[in-house]
């Protein structure tokens, strides 16, 4: 479908702009010719067929690639691949996305290309180093698009502009609707008036209505036009058709001095604008969260130099190993580990947890944390793209981009819906004509049918619910890596738990021991390099250790010393002259067994108990061959298997249906991949996180309860919304077809139905 029009001025075959008079050939400039040839050579001429260029689109005239040095700081290394995020300018339809993705995918060394149409963000990954970026950028520019390293500030303004415009539309149409209502009362009240007065009011109403409809109706007309250009019908087509038909009908009637429906048209546009505004607002809220997190990059941090002096640098320039100060009230821009000091931090940006967490030397803090108390000195362990926060944002984006099963149903339904609607409208018109009611009534009925059958309710049913539950999950510190998982969760029957790190904290601590004895044990342990001694020290922090004399280590057996004149020993049972296995402490004549246990995580016992009550079958699958602790044995699992290898875990799950696996370690990854729903923790290994569908940022098993509850409620709301939209249509459409409704009521019902669906979805945010 080339835009060349032989009758008038010749148009460029690439960008559609008129060719300057003295230029020969089919293109307006070398750039367009180049782009056209490039596209043809790459075999991507399908681009022109799929285009939805409207007359106002910017022409895709290629420009020069800016200096590569701008981009280099934004390139990150990930798993052996180089990666960059770019903002693409010039995209106005799906064809553009397709073109860019296809072109880049065919280039050498490319590993991964994804262009998100909504945010216009391009994620590019390739094998190799920074030099490979140049040809990729050139390709993008050659096609006529522009690329910039991702700057979240630009994104915010696009979203804001759209919202603003919709708000203006609402204001204008609301103003007009209100005033028109007042004037229309005189026309509708049935009062006796001369034809001159009637004409006056009618023209007055028309004068207000027509500009309003032309202005506030633009989003709908534009969208419908764009769809029709590609010979498709989207949900705005019936709406646009209805508005235009009703308006034209009213103009026609006005010229003949009869009843007009301008007030109905304007009110229709008003209600539609409200619906659209709320829809955009809701999408904006979730995106806003992601952007707010990213804005961290733009602020500054205080770095301590080798000589002890301080310098203030942009967070973007922080490197691994840098030492920074973290002052009270400051927000971290990178992942760090505390070197000096102790304080309390607000972790809500990452975990949604509003209770402050106390941290001290050795604690790991994530980007986004706010220091609430004392200044800390920290070492940078992950920056920018590597930080947990950034990964979180990326996961949010990915989960939003993926369509889930629910949305796919809705889309398919919308495809048949629009043509059906037009058919029904036509049928009603014909029917009433047949019944001898005249043109006027026939067309009016058709218009009413078109208006009332807005599939907005149907189309909003799922997205509104997903957006609301996504937002709530994020507040609860739960991340969805793909959209499918929320739909799969309600059918889960089996839940499988890993032990170490999932149910337990993964840190071994010593139980049932006197603090004084523990202190002595630690004192001895500090002289040993034995793994058990190290473990003992790790599990006891901030303990004041008494000084000992005559300390001697007997490799492989234990450590011996003197304390207050008494002989003390720490070591194996034979070393301490006693019996049993494990680590023993002998103080004089007293022997103490040091019992290491893996403590259960907070909420683990409660979560397990509640899950059993809810009817799930619980399994404990652990790679740890040791016997279970007493705490563990008390948990009401239905099936327990210890000492399972990763393959055994994987096979175990394979035999079951409707399985959810909760795990965190390296050995859980195959099992996680095999299960229907895979859950992991924010503190888990990267591999486990990659295989997981859901990630709990809070290290608390009760998050599982929150998640299950949300998933079940989401399903319920989606079903409710679908049921409502369907029954609404089954009631409203016949009413409209049988002439029992005026267009104005149709507008009210239609918008009300959308509002009901959205409000129902918003309930998910609170519960």
């Amino acid at each position, binding site marked *: 479908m080339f835009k060349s029009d032989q009758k008038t001025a010749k148009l460029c075959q690439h960008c559609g702009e008129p060719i300057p008079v003295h230029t020969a050939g089919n293109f307006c400039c070398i750039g367009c010719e180049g782009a056209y040839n490039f596209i043809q050579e790459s075999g991507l001429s399908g681009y022109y067929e799929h285009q939805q260029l409207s007359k106002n689109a910017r022409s895709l005239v290629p420009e020069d690639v800016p200096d590569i040095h701008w981009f280099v700081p934004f390139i990150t290394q990930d798993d052996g691949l180089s990666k960059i995020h770019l903002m693409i300018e010039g995209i106005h339809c799906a064809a553009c996305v397709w073109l860019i993705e296809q072109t880049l995918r065919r280039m050498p060394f490319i590993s991964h290309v994804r262009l998100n149409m909504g945010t216009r963000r391009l994620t590019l990954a390739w094998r190799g180093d920074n030099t490979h970026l140049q040809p990729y950028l050139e390709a993008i520019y050659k096609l006529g698009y522009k690329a910039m390293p991702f700057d979240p500030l630009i994104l915010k303004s696009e979203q*804001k502009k759209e919202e603003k415009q919709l708000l203006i539309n609402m204001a204008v149409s609301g103003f007009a609707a209100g005033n028109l209502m007042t004037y229309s009362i005189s026309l509708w009240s049935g009062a006796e008036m001369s034809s001159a007065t009637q004409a006056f009011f009618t023209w007055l109403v028309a004068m207000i209505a027509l500009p309003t409809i032309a202005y506030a109706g633009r989003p709908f007309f534009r969208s419908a036009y764009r769809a029709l250009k590609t010979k498709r019908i989207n949900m705005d087509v019936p709406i646009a058709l209805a508005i235009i038909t009703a308006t034209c009908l009213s103009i026609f009637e006005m010229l003949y001095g009869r009843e007009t429906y301008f007030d109905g048209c304007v009110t229709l546009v008003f209600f539609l604008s409200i619906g659209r505004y709320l829809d955009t607002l809701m999408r904006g809220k979730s995106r806003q969260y992601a952007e707010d997190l990213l804005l961290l990059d733009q602020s500054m941090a205080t770095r301590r130099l080798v000589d002890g002096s301080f310098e203030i640098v942009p967070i973007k320039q922080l490197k691994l190993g840098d030492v920074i100060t973290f002052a009270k009230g400051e927000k971290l821009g990178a992942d760090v580990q505390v070197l000096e000091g102790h304080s309390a931090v607000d972790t809500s940006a990452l975990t949604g947890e509003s209770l402050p967490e106390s941290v001290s030397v050795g604690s790991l803090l994530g980007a986004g944390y706010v220091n609430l108390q004392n200044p800390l000195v920290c070492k940078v362990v992950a920056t920018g793209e590597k930080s947990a926060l950034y990964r979180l944002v990326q996961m949010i984006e990915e989960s939003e981009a993926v369509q889930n099963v629910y949305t796919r149903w809705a889309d398919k339904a919308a495809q048949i819906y629009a043509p059906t609607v037009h058919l029904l409208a036509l049928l009603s018109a014909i029917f009433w004509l047949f019944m001898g009611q005249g043109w006027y009534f026939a067309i009016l009925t058709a218009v009413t049918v078109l208006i009332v059958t807005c599939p907005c309710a149907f189309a909003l049913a799922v997205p509104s619910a997903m957006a609301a539950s996504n937002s709530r999950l994020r507040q609860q510190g739960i991340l969805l890596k793909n959209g499918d998982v929320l739909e799969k969760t309600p059918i889960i029957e089996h839940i499988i738990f890993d032990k170490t790190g999932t149910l337990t904290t993964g840190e071994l601590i010593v139980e049932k021991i006197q603090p004084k004895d523990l202190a002595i044990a630690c004192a001895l342990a500090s002289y040993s390099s034995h793994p058990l001694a190290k473990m003992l020290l790790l599990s006891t922090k901030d303990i004041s250790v008494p000084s000992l004399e005559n300390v001697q280590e007997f490799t492989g057996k234990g450590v011996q010393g003197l304390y207050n004149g008494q002989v003390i020993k720490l070591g194996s049972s034979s070393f301490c002259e006693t019996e049993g296995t494990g680590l023993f402490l002998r103080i004089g004549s007293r022997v103490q067994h040091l019992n290491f246990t893996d403590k259960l995580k907070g909420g683990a016992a409660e979560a397990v108990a509640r899950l059993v009550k809810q009817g799930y079958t619980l399994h404990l699958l652990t790679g740890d061959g040791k016997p279970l602790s007493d705490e563990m044995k008390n948990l009401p699992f239905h099936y327990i298997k210890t000492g399972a290898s990763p393959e055994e875990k994987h096979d175990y799950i394979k035999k079951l249906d409707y399985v959810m696996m909760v795990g965190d370690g390296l050995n859980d990854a195959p099992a996680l991949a095999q299960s229907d729903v895979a859950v992991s923790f924010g503190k888990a290994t990267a591999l486990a996180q990659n295989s997981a569908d859901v990630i709990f940022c809070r290290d608390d098993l009760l998050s599982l309860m929150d998640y299950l509850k949300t998933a079940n409620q989401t399903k319920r709301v989606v079903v409710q919304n679908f049921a409502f939209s369907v029954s609404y249509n089954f009631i409203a459409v016949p009413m409209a077809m049988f002439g029992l409704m005026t267009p104005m009521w149709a507008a009210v019902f239609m918008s009300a139905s959308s509002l009901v669906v959205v409000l129902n979805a918003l309930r998910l945010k609170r519960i």
Partner: protein
Amino acid sequence: MDVILFLIPVALTLGVIALVAFLWSLKSGQFEDLEKEASRILFEEDERK
């Protein structure tokens, strides 16, 4: 009843003034951050300096 020929334009003008005022407030960014505006009242007096 002829007075209505005068009253209607007046009413419309007042309405348009209100609309313009709203559009102005919108353009000057007063609707940007709805949450912040709500809590603005709680900020300390010094902030306004």
